């Protein structure tokens, strides 16, 4: 086997086994490649017009092609993980004791315009409500959303002697009420009428809650109509009656009730006769 290159004799003198010698021979027998005829011309043009191609300033760009997507992925992923970590599901947090804002505002006391010694106080439960952790979870969630449950007051008061009532309930400020008023608003539907100012009601509005449509005339409220099935009708109040007092207190035109009232008796004038009517809740 002959070698075309000049070092063939040296290669032949190497200590090679037959396989290595054959490989060297096969490579040495490859035909030599010549440069193209216009090589010099193209080279001169290249030297004249350009600098070495590795002088390109973008040698670092291949690295950026990998680093930038990776960095972007880390930033986005980190942001998502951060938000996921901060957004703890409220329902997954065990509720030990939670204080709910009272659903009726604080007690307000206003002096009565007339000489009555009583103070009209619209009261409602001003009791911080404690959520027992033993309540069903759905109920707790509803309460967290601001919904109120009137029935909860009774439940809590019923369990107030147990450990389910927290310290805030025990230390809640006591409401001092004048005689004749209690903390429970009296209304037919157990609701308080909304008159723009949710805490103050005129006498006419209060009367309407027990089913009386009345207009103030002279000293009393002239009953125009009585709703069917209302407290007023059940108690015997009739259209044409003039309501002058409740529980012995004159029912003037400017009478303002705050929150609610707890009247037991109503004095009406019917056919020029004073009649005492007991309200039948």
């Amino acid at each position, binding site marked *: 086997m002959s070698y075309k290159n000049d070092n063939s004799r040296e290669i032949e003198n190497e200590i090679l086994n037959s396989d290595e010698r054959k*490989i060297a021979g096969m*490579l040495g027998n490859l035909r030599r490649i010549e440069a*193209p005829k216009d090589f010099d011309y193209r080279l001169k043009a290249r030297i004249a017009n350009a600098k070495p191609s590795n002088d390109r300033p973008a040698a670092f760009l291949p690295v950026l092609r990998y680093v930038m997507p990776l960095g972007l992925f880390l930033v986005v992923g980190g942001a998502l993980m951060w938000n996921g970590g901060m957004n703890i599901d409220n329902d997954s947090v065990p509720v030990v004791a939670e204080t709910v804002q009272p659903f009726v505002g604080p007690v307000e006391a206003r002096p009565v315009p007339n000489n009555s010694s009583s103070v009209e106080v619209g009261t409602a439960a001003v009791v911080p409500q404690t959520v027992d952790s033993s309540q069903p979870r759905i109920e707790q969630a509803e309460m967290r959303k601001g919904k109120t449950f009137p029935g909860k007051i009774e439940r809590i008061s019923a369990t107030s002697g147990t450990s389910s009532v927290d310290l805030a309930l025990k230390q809640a400020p006591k409401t001092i009420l004048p005689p004749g008023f209690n903390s429970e608003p009296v209304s037919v539907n157990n609701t308080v009428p909304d008159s723009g100012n949710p805490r103050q009601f005129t006498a006419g509005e209060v009367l309407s809650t027990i089913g009386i449509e009345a207009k103030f005339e002279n000293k009393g409220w002239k009953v125009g109509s009585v709703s069917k099935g209302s407290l007023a009708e059940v108690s015997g109040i009739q259209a044409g009656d003039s309501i002058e007092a409740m529980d012995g207190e004159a029912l003037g035109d400017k009478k303002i009730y705050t929150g609610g009232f707890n009247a037991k008796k109503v004095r009406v004038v019917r056919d020029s006769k004073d009649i005492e009517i007991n309200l039948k809740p």
Partner: protein
Amino acid sequence: MPLDKIETGRSEVLRTSVSEKKLSDHALIEATKNGDEAAFAEIVARYRSPITNYLYRFLNDYEEAVDLSQETFVRVYYAIERYHTDYAFSTYIYRIATNLAISEIRKRKRRTILSLTGLFQTDAEDVTEFQPPDTRSLPDEDLLEDEQAGVIAKAIETLPPKYRVPIILRDIEGKTYEEIAEIMELGLGTTKSRISRARGLLKEKLKHYF
């Protein structure tokens, strides 16, 4: 220009050409440093085919080999002031060509990965300039038709660069172990073992011919 002056100029060029062909590589480099363009042309004439052949065997791509060969001479030209005569010019120019070829192999790998992913292909480096196709027949065309030569070329192409460089320099370019060690900047023992290992790898790839 008068005719006699032209004739005088021609004879001057001929004298220069003849004399430069007798100069050593180092002398040509020195002449090039002094502004003798003909000296650099002589360097190009001496090494253009060996370098092109070396790069062609390394890359198995003739156009790429010619392009990198020209790039090698451009590098030599621009860095000629920094060239030292401590070692042979052939070692110097083969080292430049080797580095360019290895860089090209790495670029090919990156291009392959990127073409597979299809992402982030906007780099200007990947935008190839338009070049008209070379319609000339390849000098190696008849060889490429030879099945054995094609298989050998493919086998060489699959070798890792650290084995491909020394085996081509040794068995195709006929360089001595010392020259190869200098070109690759390796010890002599490492160079020999790599050449031996490269032959072993080629033997496995070309076992059908054994």
